[in-house]
């Protein structure tokens, strides 16, 4: 049985956006803090820290999860994807990011990484979604500038069942 003693830092290794990363974390360190403070990947935002706001959402093994409700050590050996990993190989916005840009789907931008990572799980399925399904998925992400209409429009433009809106 592996034991990670409190008060000591232990190595954590996982794949982040296709690259192997490693760092040291106390057993109690949250994945959100590990990403931001140990790895320096500050694109993942921290809001409520008890699983309600969705700002810290990342993808772990292809599934959107709350990084504030996940311990850094629980990510050991997993495959993580964060907002930093969404851009295309030639450093352009991906379809979801572009749709957010075109639909004015962010104001302060604090919730945006979480919104995009939640929607990225939907995008990874290749399926099309109804507006009700998009709204249900986004119900786990809180936006306090309340641009929900624009966020849903952006999501529908890429994932919606009414066909993709051509990028200008």
């Amino acid at each position, binding site marked *: *049985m592996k034991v*990670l003693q409190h008060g000591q830092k232990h190595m954590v290794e996982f794949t982040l956006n296709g690259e192997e990363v490693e760092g040291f974390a106390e057993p109690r360190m949250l994945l959100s803090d590990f990403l931001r403070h140990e790895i320096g990947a500050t694109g993942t935002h921290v809001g409520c820290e008890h699983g309600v706001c969705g700002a810290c959402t990342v993808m772990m093994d292809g*599934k*959107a999860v709350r990084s*504030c*409700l*996940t*311990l850094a050590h629980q990510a050991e050996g997993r495959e993580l994807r964060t907002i930093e990993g969404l851009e295309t190989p030639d450093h352009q916005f991906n379809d979801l990011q572009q749709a957010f840009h075109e639909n004015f789907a962010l104001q302060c931008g604090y919730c945006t990484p979480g919104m995009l990572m939640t929607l990225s799980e939907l995008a990874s399925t290749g399926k099309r979604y109804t507006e009700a399904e998009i709204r249900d998925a986004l119900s786990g992400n809180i936006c306090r500038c309340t641009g929900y209409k624009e966020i849903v429009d952006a999501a529908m433009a890429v994932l919606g069942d009414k066909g993709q809106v051509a990028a200008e």
Partner: protein
Amino acid sequence: MKPAPFSIHIPDTIDEAVTCLAEHGEDARVIAGGQSLMAMLNMRLAEPSILVDVSRLADLKTLEIGPDGLTVGAATTQAEVFHHPDLATHMPLIREALTHVGHIQTRNRGTICGSLCHADPSAEMPLLLATLGGTVTLQSSTGTRTLSASEFQTGLLETAKQQGELCTSAHFPSLPSSAKWGFREIARRDGDFAIVAMACIADKGTVRLGIGGVSDTPTVEEWPDLSTADIPDALNRLAWKMGGYDDIHASARYRRELVRRIGKKLIEEVLS
């Protein structure tokens, strides 16, 4: 909003896990998906000195869905249950209730057994365990026992699980094909814990209603022969019997009123 220090023990087998739990008693807490416990740790409502992480134990990642019902291991996530192709056929009530359990991000890590052990009075899975008459299997270094929902659910955030015991699986029996069912809940926001949640099953003239969020544990009431005209009186008596509690989300009076109003709508919908 950071957890107090703790050590993490990562057992390789169930035996190692229960031995570790027996050794450390009340200092140790089990973590699987952590979607209830991590919030408690972050808010320092729980400060265990040891977390026993069972989330990677293959023997606990079990899932069986068939005509007899759903049997789910302690490390199987709510999302894995939700996406099982046979869930809608054999356990449609569980499928409907799961859509109300948190959000997709929490269902991707949260487990059904974890929700049962956390025993929040307004949570959906404890309500379904009680309403469907399910069981919970507990394992310790000295043996295994299986408890019914009413034996297991002892109070607000409390269960009959003893120190040194690990909840290894839970079983939810399926409904007869003749049964009709419905599920409703009221929450301030989509995905929040319910203020009141209700599951109703009607079969061969008998109406069974499970209610969460009003008393400390899910309450199940059964009426052998309930006519539409009797529903308001039956629910009023039930509401007063349950009492209800005041908290930041709602008053006891409001909760009783939801039992009367939402209960009536739900039973009528199921009987129609």
